């Protein structure tokens, strides 16, 4: 009984925080729309750029390049948007009510991102379906959801690390964006990792996001073999990231409370 009461109370707190976010968004709807459109715009722009640069009419996996790039960028940007800006959701304990914990704010941040991205995904792939190709309808929803769940795990862990490091040194605020951009390059968004030389394939296979992108693409391209994909590696990496994040949050809690 005590457990159910505690759980109900905890979800009450999360609900209150979520509701406040929703109210603040309603206060400035334009900002939220711009936030949501930013990744769509980026994906469209980059797809167009690569389309022009490579002059390719079909993507390496068949179908129009727009879908190929969208399926690559979407999971990567999901990771970047979860792990970055997490800092905005956190304040010193004197800046919030004692009943709200730091982790609550992190959870609320992640829940909001997931809602945003679900809407964004439906809009993006819906638009591609209407404008470009019928293939934009996912073939295998489980793979897509699995991929996104692991990305949430990765984003949670690395987002907390990012948060703590950016508190420690300002330099990190410049390092992390560059790392995330480099990750985009090395996650197999522009190329098919299976077609690379064995050495590069071996190096790339350490990047968990590469696996997540592969898994995500499998949901759209069922004929894709994805030889490099190691679901176990991805799952273990995501679970370890979650624990790493929780650990870092616990250990640094005392130092943040000033």
């Amino acid at each position, binding site marked *: 009984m005590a457990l159910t009461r505690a759980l109900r109370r905890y979800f009450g707190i999360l609900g*209150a925080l979520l*509701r406040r976010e929703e109210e603040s968004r309603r206060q400035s709807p334009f900002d939220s729309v711009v936030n949501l459109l930013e990744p769509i715009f980026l994906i469209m722009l980059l797809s167009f750029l690569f389309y022009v640069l490579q002059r390719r009419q079909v993507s390496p996996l068949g179908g129009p390049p727009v879908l190929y790039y969208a399926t690559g960028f979407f999971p990567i940007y999901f990771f970047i948007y979860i792990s970055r800006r997490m800092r905005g959701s956190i304040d010193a*304990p004197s800046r919030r*009510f*004692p*009943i709200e914990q730091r982790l609550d704010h992190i959870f609320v941040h992640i829940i909001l991102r997931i809602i945003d991205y679900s809407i964004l995904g439906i809009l993006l792939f819906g638009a591609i379906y209407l404008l470009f190709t019928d293939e934009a309808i996912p073939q295998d929803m489980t793979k897509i959801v699995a991929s996104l769940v692991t990305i949430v795990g990765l984003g949670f862990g690395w987002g907390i690390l990012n948060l703590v490091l950016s508190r420690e040194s300002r330099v990190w605020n410049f390092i992390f964006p560059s790392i995330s951009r480099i990750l985009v390059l090395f996650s197999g968004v522009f190329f098919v990792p299976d077609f690379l030389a064995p050495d590069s394939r071996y190096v790339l296979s350490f990047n968990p996001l590469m696996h997540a992108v592969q898994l995500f693409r499998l949901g759209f391209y069922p004929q894709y073999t994805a030889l490099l994909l190691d679901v176990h590696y991805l799952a273990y990496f995501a679970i370890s990231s979650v624990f790493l994040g929780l650990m870092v949050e616990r250990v640094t809690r005392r130092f943040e409370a000033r």
Partner: protein
Amino acid sequence: MIILERVTKVAGAGDKRRSVLRAVQLSLPSDRRIAVLGPAGEDTKVFIDLLAGIVLPTAGRIVRRARLSFLPGHLGGFTRELSVRLNVAHVARLYGADVETIVNFVAQVSDLGKDFDRPYGDLSNARKRYLSDILAFSIPFDVYLLGDGVVRLGDKRYNREARALFEARAKTSGMIIASEDPGFVREFCDMGLVLAQGQAWLFENLDQALAFTDQAAPPGKTREERRAARRKRRKKRARKVLDE
């Protein structure tokens, strides 16, 4: 019941670095009105902040088997852009109180009029603090924590409502009060906790606690003298701020 399990707290930085608590094992009842006393007034504030969760213990753990209030006058956690009404509703929801009752009550008592539907950030600081006082006392808690702000209650015309609320709550709920005003403490408290030299002593009898506080004080100065000196310092600081 609030249980402190081997709690150590090192507060302050530089020259003012000191141990407020040294591995203190203590349990505080949640249905009594406890005055937190001690020769060092700052340390009692740190103790209240510890209980409220605004600062965290250096070591050890605090188990709260009661619903503790936030400190009246607490200004963190409000959203500047949202209206006062939405902010009040948010806090009520956070603490699991009945939203409608609290909002109506605060709207009535706070006497903000049209400002109640304007953004919270537009309120003056005094009004923000006052709103926070009222809000803290209007939400039902088991234990109300009171730090620096409590003596301020009743000072001004618009603080009378908050004072009345506080007195109503004092009759039915537990309280933990850090106050340097013996008169105030005598009026509302029936138990004393003395913090000195990193240790904590709980007294069933408030007079004993007050006597013990004087004993534990550094020699040469009585409590009254220290209070006077502190008041002087505070005034000096206030003057400095005004000059700037």
